[in-house]
Protein backbone atom coordinates (compact mmCIF):
# COMPACT_ATOMS: atom_id res chain seq x y z
CA UNK A 1 0.00 0.00 0.00
CA UNK A 2 2.59 2.49 1.06
CA UNK A 3 4.77 1.75 -1.91
CA UNK A 4 2.51 3.76 -4.20
CA UNK A 5 4.11 6.82 -5.61
CA UNK A 6 0.89 8.70 -6.17
CA UNK A 7 -2.49 8.02 -4.77
CA UNK A 8 -5.45 10.04 -5.95
CA UNK A 9 -8.94 9.84 -4.53
CA UNK A 10 -11.96 11.71 -5.80
CA UNK A 11 -9.76 14.37 -7.25
CA UNK A 12 -11.37 17.12 -9.24
CA UNK A 13 -9.98 20.18 -10.93
CA UNK A 14 -11.73 23.21 -12.28
CA UNK A 15 -10.06 25.82 -14.39
CA UNK A 16 -10.57 29.27 -12.93
CA UNK A 17 -12.21 31.39 -15.49
CA UNK A 18 -14.82 33.99 -16.12
CA UNK A 19 -17.69 34.07 -15.75
CA UNK A 20 -17.41 30.75 -13.98
CA UNK A 21 -14.87 27.99 -13.64
CA UNK A 22 -14.94 25.27 -16.23
CA UNK A 23 -14.72 21.65 -15.39
CA UNK A 24 -11.61 19.91 -16.44
CA UNK A 25 -11.02 16.69 -14.57
CA UNK A 26 -12.59 14.30 -12.11
CA UNK A 27 -10.98 11.05 -11.11
CA UNK A 28 -12.31 8.62 -8.62
CA UNK A 29 -9.11 6.83 -7.95
CA UNK A 30 -5.69 6.48 -9.39
CA UNK A 31 -2.60 4.81 -8.10
CA UNK A 32 0.78 5.15 -9.71
CA UNK A 33 3.53 2.80 -8.66
CA UNK A 34 7.19 3.62 -8.66
CA UNK A 35 9.01 2.60 -11.79
CA UNK A 36 5.93 2.10 -13.87
CA UNK A 37 5.22 3.64 -17.22
CA UNK A 38 1.72 5.00 -17.41
CA UNK A 39 0.16 6.31 -20.59
CA UNK A 40 -2.70 8.79 -20.65
CA UNK A 41 -4.74 8.38 -23.75
CA UNK A 42 -7.64 10.42 -24.99
CA UNK A 43 -8.68 13.05 -27.47
CA UNK A 44 -7.94 16.77 -27.13
CA UNK A 45 -9.58 18.32 -24.15
CA UNK A 46 -9.89 15.00 -22.39
CA UNK A 47 -7.94 16.23 -19.39
CA UNK A 48 -4.57 14.60 -20.05
CA UNK A 49 -2.63 17.82 -19.67
CA UNK A 50 -4.64 18.73 -16.62
CA UNK A 51 -3.79 15.46 -14.96
CA UNK A 52 -0.12 15.84 -15.77
CA UNK A 53 -0.23 19.34 -14.32
CA UNK A 54 -1.72 18.00 -11.11
CA UNK A 55 0.84 15.23 -10.93
CA UNK A 56 3.55 17.85 -11.41
CA UNK A 57 2.11 19.94 -8.57
CA UNK A 58 1.78 22.98 -10.76
CA UNK A 59 -1.92 23.14 -9.98
CA UNK A 60 -3.83 22.12 -6.97
CA UNK A 61 -6.87 19.84 -6.97
CA UNK A 62 -10.07 21.67 -6.20
CA UNK A 63 -11.22 18.74 -4.12
CA UNK A 64 -10.20 15.26 -3.17
CA UNK A 65 -7.01 13.74 -1.89
CA UNK A 66 -3.70 13.71 -3.66
CA UNK A 67 -0.93 11.80 -1.97
CA UNK A 68 2.65 11.73 -3.13
CA UNK A 69 5.26 9.50 -1.51
CA UNK A 70 2.84 8.90 1.30
CA UNK A 71 2.32 12.55 2.21
CA UNK A 72 0.38 15.63 1.21
CA UNK A 73 2.60 17.62 -1.13
CA UNK A 74 0.49 20.74 -0.71
CA UNK A 75 0.84 20.77 3.06
CA UNK A 76 3.17 23.76 3.02
CA UNK A 77 5.32 25.79 0.68
CA UNK A 78 8.48 23.80 1.24
CA UNK A 79 6.76 20.50 0.59
CA UNK A 80 5.44 21.75 -2.72
CA UNK A 81 8.87 22.81 -3.89
CA UNK A 82 10.37 19.50 -2.75
CA UNK A 83 7.62 17.59 -4.52
CA UNK A 84 8.09 19.56 -7.70
CA UNK A 85 11.72 18.66 -7.68
CA UNK A 86 10.80 15.02 -7.79
CA UNK A 87 8.22 15.26 -10.54
CA UNK A 88 9.27 17.21 -13.61
CA UNK A 89 6.81 18.10 -16.35
CA UNK A 90 7.77 18.57 -19.98
CA UNK A 91 4.93 20.26 -21.78
CA UNK A 92 3.68 19.82 -25.29
CA UNK A 93 5.09 23.16 -26.42
CA UNK A 94 7.97 23.57 -24.05
CA UNK A 95 9.34 26.99 -23.14
CA UNK A 96 13.07 27.45 -23.26
CA UNK A 97 14.73 30.25 -21.31
CA UNK A 98 16.67 32.90 -23.13
CA UNK A 99 20.27 31.93 -23.41
CA UNK A 100 22.02 28.84 -24.57
CA UNK A 101 20.96 25.23 -24.55
CA UNK A 102 23.43 24.61 -21.74
CA UNK A 103 21.98 27.43 -19.69
CA UNK A 104 18.58 25.83 -19.98
CA UNK A 105 19.74 22.41 -18.95
CA UNK A 106 21.89 23.76 -16.16
CA UNK A 107 19.00 25.79 -14.74
CA UNK A 108 17.48 23.04 -12.65
CA UNK A 109 20.86 21.61 -11.73
CA UNK A 110 21.97 24.95 -10.34
CA UNK A 111 18.81 25.23 -8.32
CA UNK A 112 19.76 21.95 -6.70
CA UNK A 113 23.19 23.37 -5.97
CA UNK A 114 25.18 20.73 -7.76
CA UNK A 115 28.87 21.37 -8.31
CA UNK A 116 29.90 22.74 -11.67
CA UNK A 117 31.65 19.67 -12.92
CA UNK A 118 28.65 17.53 -12.10
CA UNK A 119 26.45 20.00 -13.91
CA UNK A 120 28.69 19.83 -16.94
CA UNK A 121 28.69 16.07 -16.94
CA UNK A 122 24.98 15.68 -16.61
CA UNK A 123 24.37 18.29 -19.29
CA UNK A 124 26.50 16.46 -21.78
CA UNK A 125 24.95 13.18 -20.83
CA UNK A 126 21.44 14.49 -21.25
CA UNK A 127 22.18 16.06 -24.61
CA UNK A 128 23.66 12.80 -25.73
CA UNK A 129 20.54 10.91 -24.75
CA UNK A 130 18.38 13.14 -26.92
CA UNK A 131 20.89 13.03 -29.75
CA UNK A 132 21.92 16.66 -29.53
CA UNK A 133 25.58 16.19 -28.66
CA UNK A 134 27.60 19.29 -29.19
CA UNK A 135 24.61 21.59 -29.23
CA UNK A 136 25.50 23.08 -25.86
CA UNK A 137 26.34 26.55 -26.97
CA UNK A 138 23.39 27.06 -29.28
CA UNK A 139 21.07 29.90 -28.41
CA UNK A 140 17.79 28.34 -27.44
CA UNK A 141 15.90 30.79 -29.64
CA UNK A 142 17.37 29.28 -32.78
CA UNK A 143 16.00 25.77 -32.33
CA UNK A 144 13.27 24.14 -34.33
CA UNK A 145 10.20 22.80 -32.56
CA UNK A 146 11.57 19.28 -32.55
CA UNK A 147 14.96 20.35 -31.26
CA UNK A 148 13.32 22.47 -28.59
CA UNK A 149 11.27 19.53 -27.46
CA UNK A 150 14.38 17.42 -27.15
CA UNK A 151 16.21 20.09 -25.23
CA UNK A 152 13.26 20.36 -22.87
CA UNK A 153 13.39 16.60 -22.43
CA UNK A 154 17.13 16.74 -21.79
CA UNK A 155 16.52 19.51 -19.32
CA UNK A 156 14.25 17.20 -17.37
CA UNK A 157 16.37 14.09 -17.77
CA UNK A 158 19.44 15.82 -16.40
CA UNK A 159 17.62 16.29 -13.13
CA UNK A 160 17.06 12.53 -12.71
CA UNK A 161 13.70 13.05 -11.08
CA UNK A 162 11.61 10.31 -9.54
CA UNK A 163 8.83 11.04 -11.98
CA UNK A 164 9.00 12.20 -15.55
CA UNK A 165 5.76 13.74 -16.80
CA UNK A 166 5.63 14.14 -20.56
CA UNK A 167 2.86 15.78 -22.54
CA UNK A 168 2.89 14.37 -26.06
CA UNK A 169 6.61 13.67 -26.01
CA UNK A 170 6.98 12.75 -29.65
CA UNK A 171 4.45 15.13 -31.11
CA UNK A 172 6.97 17.47 -32.71
CA UNK A 173 9.32 14.79 -33.92
CA UNK A 174 9.40 13.02 -37.20
CA UNK A 175 8.65 9.33 -37.30
CA UNK A 176 12.23 8.06 -37.16
CA UNK A 177 13.29 10.36 -34.39
CA UNK A 178 10.09 9.64 -32.59
CA UNK A 179 10.85 5.92 -32.57
CA UNK A 180 14.29 6.56 -31.13
CA UNK A 181 12.84 8.81 -28.43
CA UNK A 182 10.38 6.07 -27.61
CA UNK A 183 13.28 3.69 -27.21
CA UNK A 184 14.85 6.19 -24.86
CA UNK A 185 11.71 6.41 -22.79
CA UNK A 186 11.51 2.68 -22.62
CA UNK A 187 14.98 2.54 -21.16
CA UNK A 188 14.68 5.32 -18.68
CA UNK A 189 11.90 3.70 -16.73
CA UNK A 190 13.40 0.42 -15.71
CA UNK A 191 16.94 1.70 -16.23
CA UNK A 192 16.92 4.46 -13.64
CA UNK A 193 13.89 3.53 -11.68
CA UNK A 194 12.13 6.59 -13.02
CA UNK A 195 8.38 6.58 -13.17
CA UNK A 196 7.15 7.89 -16.50
CA UNK A 197 3.69 9.27 -17.10
CA UNK A 198 3.08 10.44 -20.61
CA UNK A 199 0.12 11.47 -22.66
CA UNK A 200 -0.50 10.62 -26.26
CA UNK A 201 -3.12 10.48 -28.94
CA UNK A 202 -1.51 7.46 -30.36
CA UNK A 203 -2.84 4.14 -29.14
CA UNK A 204 -0.09 2.12 -30.63
CA UNK A 205 2.50 4.22 -28.92
CA UNK A 206 0.68 3.78 -25.66
CA UNK A 207 0.50 0.05 -26.12
CA UNK A 208 4.14 -0.18 -27.08
CA UNK A 209 5.55 1.79 -24.23
CA UNK A 210 3.22 1.65 -21.29
CA UNK A 211 2.73 -0.84 -18.50
CA UNK A 212 -0.66 0.64 -17.93
CA UNK A 213 -3.00 2.90 -19.84
CA UNK A 214 -5.46 5.38 -18.46
CA UNK A 215 -8.12 6.43 -20.88
CA UNK A 216 -9.62 9.84 -20.47
CA UNK A 217 -12.53 11.42 -22.18
CA UNK A 218 -14.15 14.75 -21.27
CA UNK A 219 -12.30 14.90 -18.02
CA UNK A 220 -13.26 11.48 -16.80
CA UNK A 221 -11.71 8.09 -16.89
CA UNK A 222 -13.32 5.72 -19.24
CA UNK A 223 -12.84 2.04 -19.28
CA UNK A 224 -11.80 0.70 -22.57
CA UNK A 225 -10.62 -2.70 -23.01
CA UNK A 226 -8.09 -2.55 -25.73
CA UNK A 227 -9.85 -5.35 -27.23
CA UNK A 228 -11.32 -4.78 -30.59
CA UNK A 229 -9.10 -1.81 -31.31
CA UNK A 230 -8.98 -0.68 -34.88
CA UNK A 231 -7.78 2.38 -36.62
CA UNK A 232 -7.63 3.68 -40.12
CA UNK A 233 -8.66 6.50 -42.37
CA UNK A 234 -12.28 7.37 -42.00
CA UNK A 235 -14.54 7.93 -44.93
CA UNK A 236 -17.99 9.25 -44.76
CA UNK A 237 -21.13 9.52 -46.77
CA UNK A 238 -22.40 12.45 -44.81
CA UNK A 239 -24.48 10.42 -42.39
CA UNK A 240 -22.23 7.69 -41.19
CA UNK A 241 -18.58 6.88 -41.53
CA UNK A 242 -16.41 3.85 -41.66
CA UNK A 243 -12.88 2.61 -41.66
CA UNK A 244 -11.51 -0.26 -43.60
CA UNK A 245 -8.88 -2.03 -41.49
CA UNK A 246 -8.79 -4.83 -44.10
CA UNK A 247 -9.63 -4.41 -47.73
CA UNK A 248 -13.29 -4.96 -48.19
CA UNK A 249 -13.98 -5.25 -44.48
CA UNK A 250 -15.54 -2.15 -43.06
CA UNK A 251 -16.35 -1.08 -39.55
CA UNK A 252 -19.18 1.39 -39.75
CA UNK A 253 -19.90 3.89 -37.04
CA UNK A 254 -22.34 6.70 -36.50
CA UNK A 255 -21.52 10.29 -37.20
CA UNK A 256 -19.34 12.08 -39.66
CA UNK A 257 -15.61 11.68 -39.21
CA UNK A 258 -12.71 12.38 -41.42
CA UNK A 259 -9.07 11.85 -40.95
CA UNK A 260 -7.46 9.07 -39.01
CA UNK A 261 -9.64 7.51 -36.32
CA UNK A 262 -9.09 4.86 -33.74
CA UNK A 263 -12.07 2.98 -32.41
CA UNK A 264 -12.98 0.21 -30.06
CA UNK A 265 -15.97 -2.05 -29.94
CA UNK A 266 -17.21 -3.15 -26.58
CA UNK A 267 -17.14 -6.98 -26.55
CA UNK A 268 -20.48 -7.04 -24.80
CA UNK A 269 -22.07 -5.18 -27.67
CA UNK A 270 -21.16 -7.80 -30.26
CA UNK A 271 -23.83 -10.41 -30.99
CA UNK A 272 -22.58 -13.86 -31.68
CA UNK A 273 -24.46 -16.50 -33.55
CA UNK A 274 -23.41 -19.69 -35.13
CA UNK A 275 -22.88 -19.33 -38.79
CA UNK A 276 -24.86 -21.33 -41.18
CA UNK A 277 -22.58 -23.46 -43.23
CA UNK A 278 -20.82 -22.01 -46.22
CA UNK A 279 -19.43 -18.60 -46.95
CA UNK A 280 -21.93 -16.09 -46.03
CA UNK A 281 -23.02 -13.14 -48.01
CA UNK A 282 -24.48 -11.68 -44.88
CA UNK A 283 -23.67 -8.25 -46.10
CA UNK A 284 -24.79 -5.35 -44.04
CA UNK A 285 -22.73 -3.17 -41.96
CA UNK A 286 -20.61 -4.58 -39.24
CA UNK A 287 -21.14 -8.22 -39.94
CA UNK A 288 -18.10 -10.41 -39.70
CA UNK A 289 -17.42 -14.08 -39.92
CA UNK A 290 -14.79 -16.10 -38.24
CA UNK A 291 -13.81 -19.08 -36.19
CA UNK A 292 -13.75 -19.24 -32.44
CA UNK A 293 -10.13 -19.67 -31.45
CA UNK A 294 -10.37 -19.16 -27.75
CA UNK A 295 -12.93 -19.23 -25.08
CA UNK A 296 -12.52 -18.14 -21.53
CA UNK A 297 -14.70 -17.12 -18.69
CA UNK A 298 -14.01 -13.75 -17.21
CA UNK A 299 -16.28 -14.35 -14.30
CA UNK A 300 -18.78 -16.99 -13.35
CA UNK A 301 -21.38 -15.75 -15.77
CA UNK A 302 -19.55 -14.29 -18.72
CA UNK A 303 -17.58 -15.92 -21.45
CA UNK A 304 -15.17 -14.18 -23.78
CA UNK A 305 -14.65 -15.68 -27.17
CA UNK A 306 -11.91 -14.74 -29.54
CA UNK A 307 -12.83 -14.98 -33.15
CA UNK A 308 -10.37 -14.92 -35.98
CA UNK A 309 -11.51 -14.34 -39.47
CA UNK A 310 -11.81 -11.21 -41.46
CA UNK A 311 -10.80 -9.38 -38.33
CA UNK A 312 -9.82 -10.54 -34.93
CA UNK A 313 -12.62 -9.70 -32.55
CA UNK A 314 -13.54 -10.54 -29.04
CA UNK A 315 -17.12 -10.85 -27.99
CA UNK A 316 -18.60 -11.32 -24.59
CA UNK A 317 -21.82 -13.12 -23.83
CA UNK A 318 -23.45 -14.87 -20.90
CA UNK A 319 -22.22 -18.41 -20.40
CA UNK A 320 -25.65 -19.92 -20.55
CA UNK A 321 -26.19 -18.57 -24.05
CA UNK A 322 -23.17 -20.27 -25.49
CA UNK A 323 -25.10 -23.42 -26.00
CA UNK A 324 -28.28 -21.71 -27.10
CA UNK A 325 -26.52 -19.96 -29.88
CA UNK A 326 -24.39 -22.83 -30.88
CA UNK A 327 -21.14 -21.15 -30.12
CA UNK A 328 -18.32 -23.56 -29.54
CA UNK A 329 -14.62 -23.70 -29.85
CA UNK A 330 -13.47 -23.96 -33.43
CA UNK A 331 -16.96 -23.30 -34.57
CA UNK A 332 -17.83 -20.81 -37.25
CA UNK A 333 -19.72 -17.82 -36.02
CA UNK A 334 -21.14 -14.59 -37.25
CA UNK A 335 -20.48 -11.43 -35.35
CA UNK A 336 -22.75 -8.45 -35.61
CA UNK A 337 -22.80 -5.07 -33.94
CA UNK A 338 -24.53 -1.78 -34.35
CA UNK A 339 -22.69 1.31 -35.61
CA UNK A 340 -23.59 2.97 -32.34
CA UNK A 341 -21.61 0.32 -30.47
CA UNK A 342 -18.41 1.56 -32.04
CA UNK A 343 -16.64 4.08 -29.80
CA UNK A 344 -14.22 6.53 -31.29
CA UNK A 345 -11.32 6.94 -28.91
CA UNK A 346 -8.79 8.72 -31.04
CA UNK A 347 -8.98 11.02 -33.96
CA UNK A 348 -6.41 12.90 -35.99
CA UNK A 349 -6.72 15.14 -39.00
CA UNK A 350 -5.71 13.49 -42.24
CA UNK A 351 -2.19 12.05 -42.33
CA UNK A 352 0.69 14.48 -42.26
CA UNK A 353 -0.88 17.15 -40.15
CA UNK A 354 0.05 17.44 -36.50
CA UNK A 355 -2.68 17.25 -33.93
CA UNK A 356 -4.06 20.62 -32.95
Amino acid at each position, binding site marked *: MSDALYRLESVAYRHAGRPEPSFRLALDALTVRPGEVLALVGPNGAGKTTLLTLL*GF*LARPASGRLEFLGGDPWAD*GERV*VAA*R*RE*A*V*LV*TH*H*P*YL*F*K*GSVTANIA*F*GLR*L*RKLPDDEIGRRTREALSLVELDGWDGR*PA*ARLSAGQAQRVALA*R*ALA*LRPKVLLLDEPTANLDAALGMRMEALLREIGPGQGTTVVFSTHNFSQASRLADDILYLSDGRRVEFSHENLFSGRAETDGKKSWIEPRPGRRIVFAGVRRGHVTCVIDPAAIRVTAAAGGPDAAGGANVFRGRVTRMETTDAATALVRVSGDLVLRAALPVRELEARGVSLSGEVLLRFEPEAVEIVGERPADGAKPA
Partner: protein
Amino acid sequence: MILRELALAVWISLKTSGLAALVASALAVPAALFLAGREFRGKRLILVINQTWMAAPTVVIGLLFYSLLSRSGPLGRFGLLYTQTAMTVGQVFLILPLIVGFSYTALRQVDRRARPTALTLGATPAQASRVVLREARFALLVAVLAGFARAVSEVGIAMMLGGNIRNVTRNITTSIALETAKGEFRNGVVLGVVLLVITLGINILVQAGFRGRDSD
Protein backbone atom coordinates in the same frame (compact mmCIF):
# COMPACT_ATOMS: atom_id res chain seq x y z
CA MET B 1 31.49 79.38 -13.26
CA ILE B 2 34.49 77.51 -12.10
CA LEU B 3 35.12 73.95 -13.10
CA ARG B 4 34.71 72.62 -9.61
CA GLU B 5 31.23 74.09 -9.29
CA LEU B 6 30.25 72.70 -12.64
CA ALA B 7 31.60 69.27 -11.83
CA LEU B 8 29.78 69.33 -8.51
CA ALA B 9 26.53 70.30 -10.19
CA VAL B 10 26.88 67.34 -12.56
CA TRP B 11 27.72 65.06 -9.67
CA ILE B 12 24.71 66.28 -7.69
CA SER B 13 22.44 65.61 -10.66
CA LEU B 14 23.80 62.11 -11.11
CA LYS B 15 23.68 61.39 -7.41
CA THR B 16 20.19 62.66 -6.61
CA SER B 17 18.52 61.46 -9.79
CA GLY B 18 20.47 58.22 -9.81
CA LEU B 19 19.41 57.50 -6.27
CA ALA B 20 15.84 58.43 -7.18
CA ALA B 21 15.95 55.97 -10.07
CA LEU B 22 17.26 53.19 -7.83
CA VAL B 23 14.76 53.79 -5.06
CA ALA B 24 11.87 54.16 -7.47
CA SER B 25 12.91 50.96 -9.28
CA ALA B 26 13.17 49.04 -6.04
CA LEU B 27 9.56 49.97 -5.39
CA ALA B 28 8.24 49.89 -8.92
CA VAL B 29 9.57 46.60 -10.24
CA PRO B 30 8.12 44.41 -7.49
CA ALA B 31 4.86 46.30 -7.83
CA ALA B 32 4.87 45.70 -11.57
CA LEU B 33 5.71 42.03 -10.99
CA PHE B 34 2.74 41.75 -8.68
CA LEU B 35 0.42 43.44 -11.17
CA ALA B 36 1.67 41.51 -14.14
CA GLY B 37 1.30 38.16 -12.45
CA ARG B 38 -2.30 38.19 -11.56
CA GLU B 39 -5.74 39.46 -12.31
CA PHE B 40 -7.90 40.91 -9.61
CA ARG B 41 -10.69 43.35 -9.16
CA GLY B 42 -9.44 46.90 -9.19
CA LYS B 43 -6.34 46.08 -11.19
CA ARG B 44 -7.56 48.09 -14.10
CA LEU B 45 -8.21 51.03 -11.84
CA ILE B 46 -4.70 50.89 -10.46
CA LEU B 47 -3.25 50.85 -13.95
CA VAL B 48 -5.34 53.84 -14.97
CA ILE B 49 -4.29 55.79 -11.90
CA ASN B 50 -0.68 54.94 -12.62
CA GLN B 51 -1.04 56.10 -16.18
CA THR B 52 -2.62 59.35 -15.05
CA TRP B 53 0.08 60.21 -12.55
CA MET B 54 2.72 59.72 -15.21
CA ALA B 55 1.53 63.02 -16.60
CA ALA B 56 1.78 65.00 -13.36
CA PRO B 57 3.63 68.29 -13.90
CA THR B 58 6.90 68.53 -11.98
CA VAL B 59 6.00 71.87 -10.43
CA VAL B 60 2.82 70.38 -9.03
CA ILE B 61 4.76 67.54 -7.46
CA GLY B 62 7.29 70.09 -6.24
CA LEU B 63 4.52 72.15 -4.70
CA LEU B 64 2.97 69.10 -3.07
CA PHE B 65 6.18 68.00 -1.42
CA TYR B 66 7.13 71.55 -0.53
CA SER B 67 3.99 71.75 1.57
CA LEU B 68 4.66 68.33 3.07
CA LEU B 69 8.33 68.81 3.89
CA SER B 70 8.36 72.45 4.94
CA ARG B 71 8.84 73.08 8.66
CA SER B 72 5.31 74.34 8.78
CA GLY B 73 4.04 71.19 7.12
CA PRO B 74 3.14 67.73 8.44
CA LEU B 75 6.59 66.24 7.84
CA GLY B 76 8.37 69.37 8.95
CA ARG B 77 10.11 67.84 11.91
CA PHE B 78 12.48 65.97 9.64
CA GLY B 79 13.80 69.27 8.33
CA LEU B 80 14.17 67.86 4.84
CA LEU B 81 13.38 70.85 2.70
CA TYR B 82 16.26 72.29 0.67
CA THR B 83 18.33 69.16 0.92
CA GLN B 84 19.42 66.58 -1.63
CA THR B 85 17.16 64.11 0.14
CA ALA B 86 14.14 66.26 -0.62
CA MET B 87 15.09 66.42 -4.28
CA THR B 88 15.45 62.66 -4.42
CA VAL B 89 12.15 62.10 -2.64
CA GLY B 90 10.29 64.36 -5.03
CA GLN B 91 11.89 62.74 -8.05
CA VAL B 92 11.10 59.24 -6.79
CA PHE B 93 7.48 60.26 -6.74
CA LEU B 94 7.80 61.69 -10.23
CA ILE B 95 9.28 58.65 -11.92
CA LEU B 96 7.62 55.89 -9.92
CA PRO B 97 4.54 55.63 -12.15
CA LEU B 98 6.71 55.76 -15.21
CA ILE B 99 8.87 52.85 -14.15
CA VAL B 100 5.84 50.90 -12.98
CA GLY B 101 4.20 51.39 -16.36
CA PHE B 102 7.20 50.38 -18.44
CA SER B 103 8.07 47.46 -16.17
CA TYR B 104 4.53 46.18 -16.26
CA THR B 105 4.58 46.13 -20.04
CA ALA B 106 7.97 44.46 -20.03
CA LEU B 107 6.82 41.74 -17.67
CA ARG B 108 3.57 41.12 -19.52
CA GLN B 109 5.61 40.40 -22.58
CA VAL B 110 7.40 37.56 -20.88
CA ASP B 111 6.01 34.25 -22.06
CA ARG B 112 3.28 32.92 -19.77
CA ARG B 113 4.99 29.58 -19.71
CA ALA B 114 8.20 30.91 -18.20
CA ARG B 115 7.07 30.80 -14.62
CA PRO B 116 5.53 27.29 -14.60
CA THR B 117 8.60 26.02 -16.44
CA ALA B 118 10.83 27.38 -13.71
CA LEU B 119 8.57 25.91 -11.04
CA THR B 120 8.52 22.44 -12.53
CA LEU B 121 12.29 22.44 -12.76
CA GLY B 122 12.33 22.94 -9.02
CA ALA B 123 12.31 26.68 -8.43
CA THR B 124 10.71 28.18 -5.36
CA PRO B 125 8.10 30.85 -6.11
CA ALA B 126 10.70 33.52 -5.35
CA GLN B 127 13.22 31.92 -7.67
CA ALA B 128 10.58 31.65 -10.36
CA SER B 129 9.85 35.35 -10.02
CA ARG B 130 13.55 36.02 -10.45
CA VAL B 131 13.49 33.97 -13.61
CA VAL B 132 10.65 36.06 -14.97
CA LEU B 133 12.54 39.23 -14.11
CA ARG B 134 15.61 37.85 -15.81
CA GLU B 135 13.68 36.98 -18.94
CA ALA B 136 12.56 40.60 -19.08
CA ARG B 137 15.84 42.09 -18.01
CA PHE B 138 16.53 44.32 -20.98
CA ALA B 139 13.11 45.84 -21.10
CA LEU B 140 13.30 46.40 -17.35
CA LEU B 141 16.63 48.12 -17.74
CA VAL B 142 15.06 50.39 -20.31
CA ALA B 143 12.35 51.21 -17.80
CA VAL B 144 14.88 52.15 -15.14
CA LEU B 145 16.93 54.23 -17.54
CA ALA B 146 13.83 55.99 -18.79
CA GLY B 147 13.04 56.88 -15.20
CA PHE B 148 16.54 58.17 -14.63
CA ALA B 149 16.45 60.27 -17.79
CA ARG B 150 13.18 61.83 -16.71
CA ALA B 151 14.51 62.62 -13.26
CA VAL B 152 17.83 64.05 -14.37
CA SER B 153 16.14 66.32 -16.91
CA GLU B 154 13.50 67.89 -14.72
CA VAL B 155 13.92 71.24 -13.04
CA GLY B 156 10.67 71.98 -11.16
CA ILE B 157 11.16 69.53 -8.34
CA ALA B 158 14.90 70.11 -8.01
CA MET B 159 14.35 73.85 -7.78
CA MET B 160 11.44 73.88 -5.39
CA LEU B 161 12.62 71.16 -3.06
CA GLY B 162 16.36 71.72 -3.35
CA GLY B 163 16.51 75.49 -3.27
CA ASN B 164 19.36 75.65 -5.76
CA ILE B 165 22.00 75.99 -3.04
CA ARG B 166 25.48 76.17 -4.53
CA ASN B 167 27.46 72.94 -4.27
CA VAL B 168 24.72 71.39 -2.18
CA THR B 169 21.46 71.21 -4.10
CA ARG B 170 22.40 73.02 -7.27
CA ASN B 171 22.28 70.42 -10.02
CA ILE B 172 22.60 70.68 -13.78
CA THR B 173 19.07 71.81 -14.47
CA THR B 174 18.80 74.35 -11.68
CA SER B 175 22.24 75.66 -12.62
CA ILE B 176 21.10 76.21 -16.18
CA ALA B 177 18.06 78.09 -14.90
CA LEU B 178 20.20 80.23 -12.64
CA GLU B 179 22.93 80.96 -15.13
CA THR B 180 20.39 81.93 -17.74
CA ALA B 181 18.65 84.26 -15.33
CA LYS B 182 22.00 85.82 -14.53
CA GLY B 183 22.71 86.25 -18.18
CA GLU B 184 25.62 83.82 -18.12
CA PHE B 185 24.70 81.99 -21.27
CA ARG B 186 28.05 80.44 -21.80
CA ASN B 187 27.75 78.50 -18.58
CA GLY B 188 24.19 77.57 -19.38
CA VAL B 189 25.17 76.20 -22.75
CA VAL B 190 28.01 74.14 -21.35
CA LEU B 191 25.71 72.59 -18.78
CA GLY B 192 23.04 72.06 -21.39
CA VAL B 193 25.45 70.17 -23.57
CA VAL B 194 26.51 68.02 -20.62
CA LEU B 195 22.88 67.19 -19.91
CA LEU B 196 22.23 66.35 -23.52
CA VAL B 197 25.26 64.12 -23.64
CA ILE B 198 24.03 62.29 -20.55
CA THR B 199 20.48 61.74 -21.74
CA LEU B 200 21.31 61.03 -25.36
CA GLY B 201 24.17 58.84 -24.28
CA ILE B 202 21.86 56.77 -22.14
CA ASN B 203 19.52 56.43 -25.05
CA ILE B 204 22.27 55.25 -27.37
CA LEU B 205 23.47 52.70 -24.85
CA VAL B 206 19.98 51.34 -24.46
CA GLN B 207 19.38 51.07 -28.18
CA ALA B 208 22.76 49.47 -28.76
CA GLY B 209 22.04 47.03 -25.98
CA PHE B 210 18.84 46.07 -27.68
CA ARG B 211 20.30 45.52 -31.06
CA GLY B 212 23.04 43.36 -29.66
CA ARG B 213 20.51 41.16 -28.01
CA ASP B 214 17.75 41.18 -30.52
CA SER B 215 19.00 37.90 -31.76
CA ASP B 216 18.64 36.40 -28.32
